C-alpha cells in the first residue's frame, strides 16, 4: 500500500484470514495485518486510540454478530472512519450484495478466488492499486505532528 499503516482484515473464517496473511507474506507487503473476526470487533479495534488507524479495510460480508453491511452502515456514518477505503472480500456473487455494498460506498468488491495462486494475484492487484492511489492522512497524525512540534519548540 502507499503508506506503512496497518491493513485491517475483518473476517470470521480462520482459514481465510490465514490465507490473506500468507499472501501478504508471499508478496512481501510490509503493512502489518490486523485481524478482527466480525464488524463489532472491528469497530472496537477502530475506536481504541492505542491502535493505529488502518490505511484500508478488507471486509468479509457474511459474519456473525455484526456482518459486513451492518459494519459499513456504522463506519460510513462516522466522520473519521468514512474516509478509510473499504474493500469487500467475500464469496458472495449476489447482485444484491454487490449493489448494496456500492450503495454503502465501498471502494472495491472482490470475490475471493478459491485457488491460492489466483488469491495471491487478487491481493497483488489490490496492493498495486492502493499504492498508486493516494490515501488520506488521518487527522490524528496531524495532531501528533503538531504536538511533537510544540514539544520540540
Amino acid at each position, binding site marked *: 500500500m502507499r503508506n506503512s499503516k496497518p491493513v485491517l482484515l475483518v473476517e470470521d473464517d480462520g482459514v481465510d484470514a490465514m490465507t490473506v496473511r500468507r499472501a501478504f507474506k508471499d508478496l512481501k507487503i510490509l503493512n502489518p495485518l490486523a485481524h478482527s473476526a466480525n464488524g463489532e470487533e472491528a469497530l472496537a479495534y477502530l475506536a481504541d486510540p492505542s491502535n493505529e488507524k488502518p490505511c484500508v479495510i478488507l471486509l468479509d460480508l457474511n459474519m456473525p454478530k455484526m456482518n459486513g453491511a451492518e459494519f459499513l452502515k456504522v463506519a460510513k456514518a462516522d466522520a473519521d472512519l*468514512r474516509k478509510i*477505503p473499504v474493500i469487500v472480500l467475500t464469496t458472495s456473487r449476489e447482485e444484491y450484495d454487490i449493489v448494496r455494498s456500492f450503495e454503502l*460506498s465501498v*471502494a*472495491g468488491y472482490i470475490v475471493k478466488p478459491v485457488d491460492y495462486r489466483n488469491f495471491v494475484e487478487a491481493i497483488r*492487484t489490490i496492493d498495486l492499486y492502493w499504492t498508486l492511489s493516494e490515501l*488520506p*492522512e488521518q487527522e490524528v497524525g496531524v495532531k501528533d505532528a503538531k504536538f511533537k512540534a510544540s514539544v520540540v519548540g
Partner: protein
Amino acid sequence: MRSSKPVLLVEDDDVDAMTITRAVDDLEIAGPLARVTDGEEALKYLRSRGNEKPCIIFLDLNMPRMNGAEFLKVVKADDTLKRVPIIVLTASKEQCDIVSSFDLCVAGYIVKPVDYERFVQALKTIDLYWTLSELPNGRW
C-alpha cells in the same frame, strides 16, 4: 473494466481528456468513453434517460462552474447515482483535496502522471483493479 458500459470522464482540460482517450484506446480497456467538461454537465449526462449509465466515473477536481468536490456531494446524496464508483484523476497532491475526496467516499485518488508512459501504466493498474472488482449492474 469488468463491464462494457461507458466510462464517464469529467474533465475540463482538452489536452488531458485527449491523453486519457488515447491511453484508453491504446490499452483497449474500456467500453465507450463519454466525456463532459464539468460537474454540472456530468449531472445532466447522468440524469438523461437516453444515456447508458456509466460503470465508473473518472473525475477531475479543478473545473469551472461545478467542481469535483461539489459534484461528489450531489452524487453521493443521490440514491441511484451514489453506487457508481468514482475515481479522482487530478493534478492536485494537496492533502486537503485528498481528505475531502475520501470523506466523500471516492474509490481511488490518482495524481495524473505527467509522463505519457507512466500515465498508461497508471490506467493499466486502474483497469486491472476494476476488472478484478465486481461492479453494480442492477437496473437504474
